[in-house]
């Protein structure tokens, strides 16, 4: 009570000061909101010291960067003709003029080797290229359809489409920071004070760099698109590649956030007008929602806390929760007004806030605990999402219980709308259903639970980026061409190190004390360093791995030292033995080695790299299964040791992230329910009621996940948070309902009457919130970005499911069990 006296005194007693404080806060928030950013970097999707990301960076640094975009070009006429090559040259030159493009690979620049009829001994640094003009079109056609490194990568099988690969410059400063941080983080001993300061500085610097590089990449993609636009009249041109996917996804999310955010907002205004028919009950909730959103955004901007693809949903969830809080306040005010017509406006505001503070606080605390539990997950965006929501929920609660009553305090009395209250009729209708058929409702719920819940078995933690976009979009078409004609979109690497026996042999050779050495060899070291891979036996094994990788229908182009050797062996006329291979490594011109050897073999020839391009758009692609299958093949069939084999690359990182998301969001759902049950027991102080209350929440979660399974909607970065949202909404409704029931039942100790009063009161607020969100979020189905559509529809569906769970199933169980209150 003391707390409420303070609240009455400071908040309700000083409405102008409260409003003024919020105006100041809003100005500051708007100012800082300019720093608010969406971060889509790889760094933003994993833990700060994630080993797989560190390994990925190390491999990219050692062999070849996969930070590139691919431009596909299909001329109207022949590909190998002067006109078409001039277009490619023009695109290439324009790309090379861009500040952040390091190099461009096209059919113009790669050496013509395979069909050149050169002998290996004639290989020099200066090789023929189409660009030099010393290669005939026929020979070029043969080269690009037969060279194992080029075919179906630079030119499509039909020879009509070509790929131009533009590699981005590496930001050395950024990688320097990353390496420094990695060194500090991997230190086994405790860091010194200076080292801790350096680590903190590095973390900030990397964060800033991430933002800068994201902006830079966005500009680069825009510039590249401008170049392509200029050439589009000369053929069919598309853009693809991971950096473009990332940039486009961010742009889609940002666009949807602004455009559809505004649409949802306006639509909610429309729906609230229909519900309440009074301007103040329309503008007030929207003002509070806006304030919560802006203050949260401002805080994130101030803290330099960029949101990620996963946490980008926070604004929608915040809108739902704030709207729910304000609707509950409005409905309570109006109910109190109807029940106590003699009370004045100020008194009604006081009574409204005092009666709703506790249940609303409970809902916020429970939801905050649920979101806070995300901080124990393994991945950074999920942790961020958890914290952002905890902060947002606090802001939503404070705004709803300070700014809203403060504004109301300054307003005049308002007459109760005399309009026919349809919501009350509907909720009381639901109550009648509960009274008449509680068993039927429970049985129906059980049946639905079983039938729809079975769909959970079909849930997939998988998605294809191409499925995020509608088929008429440029990004969809570009990805499809790259996938099906030019080797695939998503890069992946398989790295194989030497086995333990190799190191033993190495040691043995090094320590071997052979007298003959002293007799016949001079001091000069004439032995090639022992190489694990550069010998016929292991190269044969590499060939088997290469061929196996190529046999996967979902894998497009595979390149490795096997492809390179096929080229030089053709020039040599025969396979190489160990001695020749050692010589080859030494004699091959640097420029050719850069293309043929270095991307696939470490300098000491002990580590091999197979580069795969995965066909992202293949409906059969299941990343987890593919990775497990490759790993199993390497370990069980090829007999490599566990520690030798490493799968890395964007595809692996993405799969790791999805699997971690699945673990943190879905597999821990049981633990989340246990935590919620614990909260219910504390809040309701009644174990029986708490156990009953958990049922509609399980019902909601199972129904949503089952529906997603049946409809084949994959769990990905965007949709995986739906389960959390569903539980959040459902739990809020349950707390409100049970809290009210605990107050209504003691009035006459009659379950039916208590249920009627609950439905006629709090039921209306639940109904208004659910229907408003359902229709409001349905607007998102007009988006061009498929995850936004899923998000909108599933959130709306979750609201309706929660409504049914809390206004039909929950009271039916109460009626059957008749728990002690």
């Amino acid at each position, binding site marked *: 009570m003391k707390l409420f006296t303070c609240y009455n005194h400071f908040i309700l007693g000083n409405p102008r000061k409260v409003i003024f404080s919020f105006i100041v806060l809003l100005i500051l928030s708007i100012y800082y909101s300019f720093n608010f950013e969406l971060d889509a970097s790889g760094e933003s999707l994993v833990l700060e010291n994630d080993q797989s990301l560190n390994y990925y960076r190390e491999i990219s640094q050692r062999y070849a960067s996969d930070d590139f975009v691919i431009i596909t070009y299909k001329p109207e006429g022949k590909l190998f003709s002067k006109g078409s090559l001039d277009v490619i040259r023009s695109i290439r030159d324009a790309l090379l003029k861009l500040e952040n493009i390091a190099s461009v690979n096209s059919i113009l620049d790669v050496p013509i080797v395979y069909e050149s009829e050169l*002998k*290996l001994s*004639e290989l020099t640094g200066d090789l023929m290229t189409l660009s030099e003009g010393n290669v005939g079109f026929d020979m070029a056609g043969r080269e690009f359809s037969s060279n194992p490194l080029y075919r179906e990568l630079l030119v499509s099988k039909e020879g009509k489409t070509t790929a131009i690969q533009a590699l981005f410059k590496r930001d050395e400063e950024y990688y320097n920071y990353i390496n420094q941080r990695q060194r500090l983080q991997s230190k086994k001993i405790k860091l010194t004070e200076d080292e801790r300061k350096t680590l903190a500085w590095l973390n900030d610097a990397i964060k800033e760099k991430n933002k800068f590089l994201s902006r830079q990449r966005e500009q680069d993609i825009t510039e590249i698109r401008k170049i392509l636009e200029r050439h589009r009249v000369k053929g069919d041109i598309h853009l693809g590649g991971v950096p473009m996917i990332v940039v486009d996804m961010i742009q889609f999310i940002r666009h949807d956030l602004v455009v559809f955010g505004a649409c949802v907002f306006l639509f909610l205004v429309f729906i609230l007008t229909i519900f309440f028919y009074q301007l103040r009950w329309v503008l007030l909730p929207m003002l509070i929602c806006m304030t919560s959103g802006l203050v949260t955004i401002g805080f994130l901007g101030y803290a330099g806390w960029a949101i990620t693809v996963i946490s980008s949903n926070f604004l929608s969830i915040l809108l739902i929760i704030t709207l729910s809080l304000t609707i509950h306040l409005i409905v309570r005010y109006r109910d109190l007004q109807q029940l106590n017509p003699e009370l004045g406006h100020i008194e009604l505001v006081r009574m409204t806030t005092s009666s709703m503070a506790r249940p609303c606080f409970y809902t916020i605390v429970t939801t905050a605990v649920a979101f806070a539990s995300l901080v124990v997950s393994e991945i950074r965006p999920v942790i961020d999402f958890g914290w952002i929501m905890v902060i947002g929920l606090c802001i939503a609660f404070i705004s709803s219980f300070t700014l809203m009553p403060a504004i109301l305090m300054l307003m005049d009395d308002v007459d109760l709308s005399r309009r026919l209250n349809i919501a009350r009729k509907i909720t009381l209708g639901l109550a009648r259903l509960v009274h008449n058929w509680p068993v039927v409702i429970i049985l129906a719920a059980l049946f639905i639970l079983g039938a729809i819940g079975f769909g959970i078995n079909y849930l997939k933690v998988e998605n294809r980026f191409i499925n995020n976009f509608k088929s008429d979009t440029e990004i969809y078409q570009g990805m499809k061409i790259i996938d099906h004609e030019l080797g695939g979109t998503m890069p992946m690497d398989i790295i194989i190190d030497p086995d333990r026996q190799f190191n033993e042999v190495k040691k043995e050779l090094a320590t071997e004390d052979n007298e003959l050495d002293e007799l016949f*060899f001079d001091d000069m070291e*004439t*032995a*090639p360093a022992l190489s694990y891979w550069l010998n016929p036996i292991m190269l044969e094994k590499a060939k088997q791995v290469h061929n196996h990788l190529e046999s996967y229908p979902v894998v497009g182009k595979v390149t490795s030292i096997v492809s390179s050797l096929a080229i030089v062996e053709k020039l040599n006329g025969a396979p190489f033995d160990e001695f020749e291979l050692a010589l080859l490594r030494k004699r091959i011109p640097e420029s050719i080695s850069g293309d043929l050897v270095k991307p696939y073999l470490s300098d000491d020839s002990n580590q091999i790299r197979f580069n795969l391009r995965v066909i992202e758009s293949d409906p059969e692609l299941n990343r987890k299964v593919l990775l497990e299958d490759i790993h199993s093949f390497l370990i069980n069939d090829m007999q490599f040791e566990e520690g030798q084999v490493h799968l890395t690359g964007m595809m692996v990182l993405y799969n790791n992230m999805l699997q971690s998301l699945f673990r943190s969001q879905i597999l821990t759902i049981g633990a989340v329910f246990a935590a919620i049950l614990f909260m219910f027991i504390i809040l309701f102080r009644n174990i029986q009621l708490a156990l009953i209350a958990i049922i509609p929440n399980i019902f909601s979660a199972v129904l949503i996940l089952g529906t997603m399974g049946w409809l084949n909607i994959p769990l990905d970065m965007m949709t995986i948070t739906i389960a959390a949202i569903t539980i959040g909404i459902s739990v809020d409704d349950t707390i409100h309902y049970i809290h009210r029931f605990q107050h209504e039942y003691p009035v006459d100790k009659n379950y039916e009457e208590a249920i009627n009063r609950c439905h006629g009161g709090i039921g209306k607020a639940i109904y208004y919130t659910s229907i408003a969100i359902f229709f409001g979020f349905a607007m998102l189905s007009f988006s061009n970005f498929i995850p936004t559509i899923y998000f909108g529809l599933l959130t709306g569906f979750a609201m309706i499911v929660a409504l049914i769970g809390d206004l039909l199933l929950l009271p039916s169980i109460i009626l059957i069990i008749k728990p002690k209150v």
Partner: protein
Amino acid sequence: MIKQYLIQVLILVYMITISSYVVAESADQIVFDTTEEVLNRLQVDRNKLAKEPEYIKTIVRELIIPHMDFITMSELVLGNRWNELNQNKKECFSNGFKNLLVERYAYILLSYKQQNISYQSAKPIGEKGNVSIMQTLTREGVKPLIIEYPMRPDANSWKVIDLVIDDVSLIRSYRKMFTKEIKHTGLENFVGSFQECN
């Protein structure tokens, strides 16, 4: 590229081996003289070689192999494991290794192309009066190739015990490869894998 270098190597091996009959001749002189003879033989038998490429093996066996010290080369290539073999196994392995090299490198002589060859004086290596003769092969646009022939005195002649191209030793390369295989399959199985030892 590799073929070209090995051609030179084989020619010079031949040159060295035939000249080793002339004890009084220095190792340098042997290399120079025999190069000419091998080139002449290739020139003379050019038509026959074009029709019967297999004939090159005969040339190699006639002119080169008899003058290489395969016992020492086998000993070097097996390292400490050489002493674990009995006499029969030593002989069969030595024959097997010889045939492996003939099969592997004989054809390379067929694709010989004229290159400039320069010589350096023999320099002593090791502790038993062995020498190494170095020559440099040059051709326009290609990095010069340095070949060394470690040789040991053998009664009235010099015998080749290794080839070192661009600092890569043939014997040591094979030794590393064989060590790995022996580690994997065992010495008995490894030696048994040579047809000559079955």
